[in-house]
């Protein structure tokens, strides 16, 4: 492999156009935040039944994808695969950017975002949220140091141990995110230890899909060369990760289906849940998993870039559907207050809760994505994150010449 040169993004005035567009989206998102916080959450689709809504779907997606985006760097540092080394800087940058976007959404949806300082000064160490505050800030710090080690020639020798630390940290981080649901005893759809590893594998898949799209986008934008060698490796990796997520989804539902206690919630998600059932089967399983697998492995699509782009887009779409089903579906199914009894009350006991997200909630989520993209665009413009070329002749050890 030849020496890799890294260069700042060199896209002329279109850089400012991109900043302006992303900035405008973020401003619209902030407008939505002001609207929701000024009036209170009654202007949203969320209520006392569906307490976490669309902002949380976006936020958790971004946070999960953030830890997954770091994998590309980890494969280079931790598993010593040379081909991934030139991809590592963007991987670290994307990880920080996605996490920042996700956290922004999460924080701006709080009932009292003005009290963020309270969350930083009062800690209850039994709360997974508290662990996550440390895991998220720690992740930012460690990945920041990791980037420094990679980008500073003199510190290069430390990049492997810091890479190990970052890899371990990201596994713990996603375990923490999955445990937000895994440790909830109250609700039928949650309270399962498998949530944590399932979220880890989900992060592999969503994070890599996001990475592929950002990498291809930036290289196309800056007209840099991106060879098939890199893309084919990433394509195969994505296929394995998608299959991994499917496996965990299968085990999760099989476990629940075995226990009579959980038949109700399983019937709800898999058969009777209306929008949730449709999202699960059509979007998460078919469009978000099986179709991408076909796009990745079917001989007719081999080596075709558009199939990889489409597969990545569909994986992200499926990921959103999956989180929507887990988050909203899990809350929509009524709490089992009195097993064996049919329950009715004035507080929506015993009935399936409806949820229709409003524009402002979705806008806040989209602004989170825009924040991530803006950070990536800006950082790769001012610092040397991107290799000058990822052409086969540069990265493929077996390439001729």
């Amino acid at each position, binding site marked *: 492999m030849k020496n890799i040169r890294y260069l700042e993004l060199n896209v002329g005035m279109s850089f400012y156009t991109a900043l302006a567009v992303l900035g405008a989206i973020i401003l619209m998102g902030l407008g939505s935040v002001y609207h929701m916080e000024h009036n*209170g959450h009654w202007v949203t689709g969320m*209520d006392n039944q569906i307490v976490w809504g669309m902002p949380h779907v976006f936020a958790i997606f971004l946070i999960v994808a953030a830890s997954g985006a770091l994998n590309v760097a980890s494969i280079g540092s931790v598993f010593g695969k040379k081909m991934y080394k030139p991809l590592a800087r963007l991987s670290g940058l994307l990880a920080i950017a996605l996490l920042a976007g996700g956290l922004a959404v999460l924080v701006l949806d709080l009932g009292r*975002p003005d*009290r963020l300082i309270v969350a930083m000064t009062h800690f*209850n160490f039994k709360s997974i949220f508290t662990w996550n505050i440390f895991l998220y800030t720690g992740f930012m710090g460690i990945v920041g140091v990791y980037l420094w080690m990679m980008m500073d020639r003199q510190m290069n020798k430390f990049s492997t141990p810091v890479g190990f630390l970052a890899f371990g940290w990201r596994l713990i981080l996603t375990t923490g995110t999955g445990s937000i649901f895994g440790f909830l005893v*109250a609700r039928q759809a949650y309270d399962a230890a498998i949530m944590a590893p399932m979220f880890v594998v989900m992060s592999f898949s969503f994070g890599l899909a996001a990475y592929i799209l950002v990498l291809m986008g930036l290289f196309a934008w800056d007209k840099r060369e991106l060879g098939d060698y890199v893309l084919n490796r990433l394509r195969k990796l994505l296929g394995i990760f998608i299959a991994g997520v499917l496996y965990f989804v299968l085990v999760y539902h099989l476990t629940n289906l075995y226990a009579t206690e959980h038949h109700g919630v399983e019937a709800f998600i898999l058969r009777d849940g209306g929008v949730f059932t449709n999202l699960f089967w059509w979007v998460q399983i078919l469009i978000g998993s099986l179709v991408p697998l076909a796009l990745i492995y079917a001989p007719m699509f081999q080596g075709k870039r558009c199939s990889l782009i489409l597969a990545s887009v569909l994986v992200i779409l499926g990921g959103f559907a999956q989180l929507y089903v887990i988050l909203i579906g899990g809350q929509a199914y009524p709490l089992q207050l*009195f097993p064996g009894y*049919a329950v009715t009350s004035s507080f929506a006991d015993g009935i399936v809760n409806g949820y229709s997200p409003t524009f402002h909630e979705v806008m806040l989520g989209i602004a989170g994505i825009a924040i991530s993209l803006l950070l990536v665009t800006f950082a790769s413009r001012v610092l040397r994150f991107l290799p000058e070329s990822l052409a086969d002749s540069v990265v493929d050890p077996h390439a001729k010449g």
Partner: protein
Amino acid sequence: MSNEQQPDLARRDFMSSGAQLAAGLTLAPGVVLYGVAQAKPDDQPVTDKVRWGMLIDTTKCADGCDDCVTACKTEQGWDNQTHARATQSAQWIRKVTLRDKATGHQHSLPMMCQHCENPPCADVCPTGASFKRADGIVLVDRHICIGCRYCMMACPYKARSFVHETITDQLPHMPRGKGCVEGCTMCVHRVDAGQTTACAEACAKAGHNAILFGDLNDPKSAIAKTVAKYATTQVRADLGLNPGVRYSGI
């Protein structure tokens, strides 16, 4: 016994006689008052020697009567939202109707914060705003609640509400405002003043006496005697939370 301990002894003597008083008092024919505590001195912190609880006798709880809910609204002033949809409105206490799926038998009961010994809301709260007082009352400290709603996700009893809009005209003893989570306080302001809860009082005044409030740790209290003598149930006992609110007749 040294002399310094004398006032303490007097206090203990008073407390036990207070407990005897509390065990049961016939005010008028048919109206028996149970489980009212003596007031704790204002400058003393609450202790874990006391565990406040309620026993709800569902056989005495009348179908269609929601006096406890009305009393709670009036006492705490929580049903005054103007914008929130029905599913967004606060409900600190609600009447739940249960129908046995196998037999069709139907009865109703009030449901509110169960004041768990191991409250999941307090476990998950990132700032410690959800907490359990030494005397077993589970509260939200709105001063440090950031409105993340994780406690609402964690509560098996759906006992918490989120305030979805700006609130005005709060009652001086019950501050509430937009963006925080709230729930039954077991009328902590009344309990600290030595009174019973508003729901228990309203139920007694309505002549049902389905709600018995008192100190579960005091073997002489009516509630402790009753739970020792009769079979009572914890809702979702499988979760092992040991709620301070118990039911009989479910």
